[in-house]
């Protein structure tokens, strides 16, 4: 029992965030008379926040190095402007246009990463410069005007749903089937991990607890999918987001590169003296941020069905806020992808819930600001307590 308590204490930040998210969801479910979790609204929340969450994943890596990226909103807008011009003005086909946009994102990331990692200009300054430059370039590119509409295929890629091949009256069976398969895979991998740990002779949580954990995850995911299935099923953005979360969770937790990022943020000198190519790690993190900004830019453009000169304004602040609410440390070395996603969802549900209740935009900002402050204050408080 004491072991369990210790395990709980070690992950208190993660659990606290999940409980906070649960609390906010229940609160608004009550305040909105159940509108919040209705199938249509749930789908909306995902589509409204997808691109912020994508940015938050990339931002988390930057924050792990102890820095931030202020340019992502402008980069997303610029990539969108270029993509829009390619597809609507130059009439490029959709897929090559998307690839070109992704390459452009990586190039922009490399450009900023070069100054940050090899020239060692503070990331804050390089990305502040990027924020101005790429916003300006967006306006130049679009001549200050909105480009619309996008080709049908492009819009569909980011705004439609996984087609329901299994049919079903008012319920999307395909969505439920896919999630059932994914849950089985999840249980299988968890079980394998547990067996592996046992084979090594490590301590594992008692079996009933393990079963409870799996069942809890399955229940939440199934309930969530059921609501989506009652509307139009799984949105494409969710597929993209899910894939990115899986990939980046894996990279941060299980790969040498991920470990290098954490080591860099924890103590750069020590990392360097341990044989880590710190400049390269730093560079790759920012190159990757460029890629993620491009993905987010495309997703946003798809949802808007237009390339807008004011796209992406303040995205960087939402992404940074998501990471910090999700438990990342401003000084680097601490934070998880899951945390950033939970942080982003807390912000998203707050936005959506308050809008439904009828709280005006100005007050929404105040509430979001206070939530950010409270989350980090909680962090500092628990840290102080465990230190003593």
């Amino acid at each position: 029992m004491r072991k369990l308590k210790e395990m709980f204490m070690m992950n208190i930040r993660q659990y606290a965030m999940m409980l906070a998210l649960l609390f906010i969801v229940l609160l608004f479910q009550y305040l909105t008379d159940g509108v919040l979790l209705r199938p249509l609204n749930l789908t909306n929340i995902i589509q409204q926040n997808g691109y912020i969450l994508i940015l938050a994943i990339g931002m988390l890596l930057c924050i792990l190095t102890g820095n931030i990226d202020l340019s992502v909103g402008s980069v997303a807008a610029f990539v969108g402007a270029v993509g829009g011009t390619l597809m609507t003005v130059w009439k490029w086909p959709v897929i090559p246009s998307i690839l070109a946009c992704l390459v452009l994102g990586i190039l922009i990331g490399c450009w900023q990463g070069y100054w940050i990692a090899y020239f060692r200009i503070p990331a804050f300054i390089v990305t502040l410069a990027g924020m101005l430059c790429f916003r300006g370039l967006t306006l130049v590119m679009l001549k200050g005007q909105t480009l619309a509409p996008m080709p049908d295929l492009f819009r569909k890629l980011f705004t439609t749903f996984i087609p329901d091949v299994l049919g079903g009256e008012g319920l999307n069976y395909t969505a439920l089937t896919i999630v059932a398969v994914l849950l089985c895979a999840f249980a299988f991998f968890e079980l394998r991990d547990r067996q592996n740990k046992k084979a090594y002779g490590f301590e594992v949580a008692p079996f009933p607890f393990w079963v409870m954990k799996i069942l809890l995850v399955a229940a939440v995911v199934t309930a969530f999918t059921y609501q989506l299935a009652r509307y139009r099923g799984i949105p494409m953005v969710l597929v993209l987001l899910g894939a990115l979360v899986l990939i980046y969770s894996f990279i941060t937790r299980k790969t040498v590169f991920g470990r290098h990022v954490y080591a860099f943020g924890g103590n750069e000198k020590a990392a360097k003296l341990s044989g880590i190519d710190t400049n390269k790690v730093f560079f790759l993190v920012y190159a990757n941020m460029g890629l993620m900004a491009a993905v987010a830019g495309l997703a946003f453009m798809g949802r808007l069905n237009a390339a807008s000169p004011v796209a992406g304004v303040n995205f960087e602040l939402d992404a940074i806020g998501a990471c910090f609410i999700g438990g990342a440390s401003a000084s680097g070395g601490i934070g998880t992808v899951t945390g950033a996603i939970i942080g982003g969802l807390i912000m998203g549900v707050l936005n959506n819930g308050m809008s439904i209740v009828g709280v005006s935009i100005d007050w929404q900002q105040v509430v979001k600001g206070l939530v950010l402050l409270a989350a980090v204050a909680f962090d500092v408080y628990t840290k102080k307590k465990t230190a003593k």
Partner: protein
Amino acid sequence: MAKTLLRMKSITKTFPGVRALNDVCFDVEEGEIHALVGENGAGKSTLMNILSGVYPFGSYEGEIVFDGETCVFNTIKDSEKIGIVIIHQELALVPYLSIAENVFLGNERARRGVIDWSETYARTDDLLKQIRLHENPATITKDLGVGKQQLVEIAKAISKDVRLLILDEPTAALNDEDSNNLLNLLLDLKKKGITSIIISHKLNEVEKIADRITVIRDGAVIETLDNATKNIREDRIIKGMVGREIVDRFPKRPPHARGDLALEVRDWTVGDPLFFDRKKIKGVSFNVHKGEVVGLVGLMGAGRTELAMSLFGRSYGSDFSGCLFLGGQSATLHSPKEAIARGMAYVTEDRKSAGLILIDDIRHNISLASLGKLSDKRGVLDENKEITVAEDLRKKMSIKTPSVFQKVGNLSGGNQQKTILARWLFANPDVLLLDEPTRGIDVGAKYEIYCIINELAAMGKAIVLISSEMPEVLGMSDRIYVMNEGRFVGELDRESASQEAIMKCIMQSNREVA
């Protein structure tokens, strides 16, 4: 019989799960220098923190009587008000402020919030004269050496009309000359009637200047030794500290034959990283054989750390020239990564800022330099293997924690040092450059680290031992190189090595340069 200035009666302090101090009684007489010694974690700092008000009244049991009056300290300010000033191990100076600003920081000479600079500078000048620090009060603090910064701290303490000065490891970061200065200053202050308590691991200094020595072990006072006639010897103090007589402070190594050449350096020259025409290392040549421990001694600033780091993949310096041979083969190393790949390891002198990731756990700190060994070709880590490896090394190095999931920042200095050594043990290098491997750790942990060094040598590793503690180098090394001002000025074998011989080499080279 002198008057008792301070009496701490039956002090008991408990932290959750630990009793840090148990019924401690501690007396200090007016005008004496009282040394407080004990291993790390024995409770010295806790006791001093209670005395200075860091732990407020009510968080401990017992009573403090200062100059006949019972004291209730709620903050550090309260203790300073009656003249108790503590100088912590980590200096609390603001680097970009001047000496004068630092001396009167928090105690500004001001009228209605406006600082009177003339008075500030005049009084600082006065204080600096008292402590014989010949610097302009307007000098920016970061431009001073550590030794002088320590003196500024003392000036700050005197400016507050100190009656009892507490110094926590004041000489830990100082070289011999600066240490002597500081100790002489303490003797001066004593003549002026200032009482001091000094906490130190450097027992030779303690035996030289302390009038009385109190030994603490496991949160209890073991004994108070009277050293008025300066006749207490180091061994006697150690006996009290560890509870048994340590016959050998350095473990014996069985006689062994010298192996092949592992590391050879010829004409190694390195420039300052910013001003590359200013040479830091000037044409150094030396070698280390397999299974050999080679000591590297010199005064602070001789260039030992710079030499080691420049060899370790050019981690320090610019404008490199000279040759480096590893296992007989020429090697040009551009980064620590390449150096590690060729079988080198460097254990830094500054474990907190350049060695460990303090916010991470033991496991990740051990695996940091050898992630390649724990992952497949695609760079995916085997975390289970990592835990197993780390757990093995934790037991082998007797890092005293329940598991490898402990945060390194919460460990004692000795355990932190063992964690770094474990990291390099796992990397399995041929040549180890150990820079001050026992700095700031207690006698017991030092002995364990000496054993590890000997074990590594017995495995055929070549070891370069850099240390400011001469007895340590003399006790551990097969051969000793003496370094001064970026040059090698002497090579001594085990038989001919002694503290005097080393100093002679340094003095001689200083004369030649002059």
